[in-house]
């Protein structure tokens, strides 16, 4: 069940251009069933190192070069994906590196490598061929030396030397439970090859890379998208769905860099929440993490050392939407602890305003998320409805925060983020400012035609008793 694509590393939406016009890439072969068929054609060819696959036209173009070849450059493309043979683009080695076809050309002692086609200063028996890949002066392992790729050196006193290229296993270590592991190991601990994440065979699964952009589900490398105790993958063995990978741990069990610990609120998904809330939003007490009753589970505190699974506190060890826990109620396995409030994620205010800020004339020019404001007299990225000429009374100067429409939530601006037309600013109401209370006598209410509900016949309660 091994896919021919397993030998390739994909770059989505990318084309590899050759910058010398005299060099002509392979012709496009149309109506190729899928990228796997293209890989099947390229795989065995010694002079095929990569291919373009055009998803819409189902075209396939074989390429004798990769992004590391001279005079090539990667280019964004709306029509195809670039698949390159792993051996040519991986910067680490699997096993003894006999398959390594990278471009390192320096020994571990810092000596430049001698070109394989040269017999000077160090004579040798090797003749470069397509089979042995002894190209230029790149490190190679033609004799399957256990020490990995090596080369003859340009120093006559040092005949040859290892290049010290790291094994993929050693090249990247696992911090915490490996949610941010992005190494290039594609084997499980029993040696089974991993299934590609973008394939649904031999094992169908929910982790489509396009839906989990933040999980780095590249090719068929070991990853941890579901908060397991360490990186794993689906295997190409139909009898064996998934398996952990054997990867070295980084030093001390430190928290992943990107997390800040919070105690009284939670930020983002709450993976850094370390407070003591221990009931669910429904008020049900949480089960202790070191207990297996009433609910059995895999989150043993010692296996999630940096997730702080102490006592029965709400935690988020698996990247769920919010802190959660197993509940002490047999009929309710897990529940979120949404009663913990979210930390305010706004930038600290830099100034203050009175009323709703219609007369604010300060020079703050940043939104509460820290995005720079667009100039009021500019037309991009957002075409403004309020301009210095259309609203002279609002003093719309430069890109300073203002309130030309009397927005009750304070000064705002158009933002430099194309995806955010406007937002409020890093301003707060001045301390001495007492807004009028809305709890004064209620206003009159007039509604347009909406909020009408047709009680559905299938729902109408029977009048019969």
């Amino acid at each position, binding site marked *: 069940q091994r896919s021919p694509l397993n030998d390739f590393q994909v770059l989505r939406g990318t084309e590899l251009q050759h910058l010398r016009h005299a060099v002509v890439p392979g012709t496009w072969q149309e109506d190729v069933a899928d990228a796997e068929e293209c890989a099947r054609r390229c795989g065995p060819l010694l002079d095929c190192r990569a291919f373009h696959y055009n998803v819409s036209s189902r075209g396939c173009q074989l390429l004798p070069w990769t992004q590391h070849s001279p005079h090539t450059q990667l280019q964004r493309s709306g029509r195809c994906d670039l698949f390159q043979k792993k051996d040519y683009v991986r910067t680490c080695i699997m096993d003894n590196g006999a398959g390594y076809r990278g471009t390192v050309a320096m020994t571990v002692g810092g000596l430049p490598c001698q070109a394989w086609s040269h017999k000077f200063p160090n004579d040798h028996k090797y003749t470069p061929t397509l089979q042995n890949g002894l190209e230029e002066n790149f490190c190679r392992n033609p004799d399957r030396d256990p020490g990995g790729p090596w080369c003859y050196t340009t120093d006559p006193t040092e005949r040859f030397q290892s290049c010290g290229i790291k094994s993929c296993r050693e090249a990247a270590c696992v911090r915490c439970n490996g949610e941010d592991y992005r190494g290039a190991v594609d084997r499980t601990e029993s040696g089974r090859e991993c299934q590609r994440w973008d394939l649904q065979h031999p094992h169908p699964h929910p982790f489509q890379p396009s839906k989990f952009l933040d999980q780095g589900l590249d090719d068929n490398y070991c990853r941890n998208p579901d908060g397991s105790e360490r990186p794993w993958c689906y295997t190409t063995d139909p009898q064996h769905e998934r398996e952990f990978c054997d990867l070295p741990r980084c030093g001390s069990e430190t928290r992943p860099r990107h997390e800040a610990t919070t105690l009284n609120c939670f930020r983002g998904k709450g993976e850094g929440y370390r407070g003591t809330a221990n009931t669910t939003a429904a008020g049900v007490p949480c089960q202790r993490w070191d207990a297996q009753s009433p609910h059995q589970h895999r989150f043993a505190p010692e296996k999630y050392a940096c997730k702080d699974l102490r006592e029965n506190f709400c935690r988020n060890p698996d990247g769920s939407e919010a802190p959660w826990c197993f509940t002490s109620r047999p009929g*309710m396995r897990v529940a979120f602890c949404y*009663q913990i409030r979210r930390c305010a994620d706004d930038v600290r205010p830099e100034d203050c305003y009175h009323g709703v800020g219609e007369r604010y004339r300060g020079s703050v020019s940043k939104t509460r998320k820290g995005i720079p404001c667009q100039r009021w007299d500019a037309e991009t990225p957002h075409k403004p409805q309020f301009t210095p000429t259309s609203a002279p009374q609002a003093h719309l100067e430069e890109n300073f925060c203002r309130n030309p*429409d009397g*927005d009750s*939530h304070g000064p705002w601006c158009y933002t430099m983020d194309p995806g955010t037309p406007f937002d409020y600013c890093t301003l707060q109401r001045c301390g001495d400012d007492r807004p009028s209370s*809305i709890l004064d006598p209620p*206003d009159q209410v007039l509604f347009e035609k*909406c909020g009408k*509900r047709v009680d559905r016949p299938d*729902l109408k309660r029977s009048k019969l008793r």
Partner: protein
Amino acid sequence: MVGGQPGNSPWTVSLRNRQGQHFCGGSLVKEQWVLTARQCFSSCHVPLLGYEVWLGTLFQNPQPGEPGLQRVAVAKMVCGPSGSQLVLLKLERPVTLNQRVALICLPPERYVVPPGTKCEIAGWGETRGTGNDTVLKVASLNVISNQECNIKHRGRVKESEMCTGGLLGSVGACEGDYGGPLACFTHNCWVLEGIIIPNRVCARPGWPAIFMRVSVFTDWIHKVVRL
């Protein structure tokens, strides 16, 4: 929804995550805009690929092809003013309004619902064993003044929040209902007066429930839709 009974709320939508699971409620305020709770999303910039809203069904897990079911991808998220605990979701396309899918009115800016007004909440959330886990449930609640509410909640209730009276029984919203509507029948219209937000405990007997007061943010909603 703890307590309550199966019911119909054609403006209540179900938010679905990348695995297609229901995780929050929402209210259809414009054909292409849903108002929901900030608590439902881990950040204001979470990648929305794979997130959808489902409308036109009463079932939490409608069968594919169920008549009336509309599934629309979420295209964009706009977080509300600081402290609003609200989020507007722009849908990839407008929904089709019909008997099963309807808009709900927004209240006038700064409108305060008179105490005693009859309202209802709706959602597919946690029932805590009160039954009908698989269908949309509604529960009737009566508005009380912030002043009365602050007696129990010791002054913590803000002006941008509103309350419904505590009931003897355990009736109220719970996990999975957040973001859903507190709709009040006023002048022959259903009006979205509140948004369900997490309370310290779900449906606590005898305790007033706290909701976000939509009328404080009506101007923001109109502005986002307009801009």
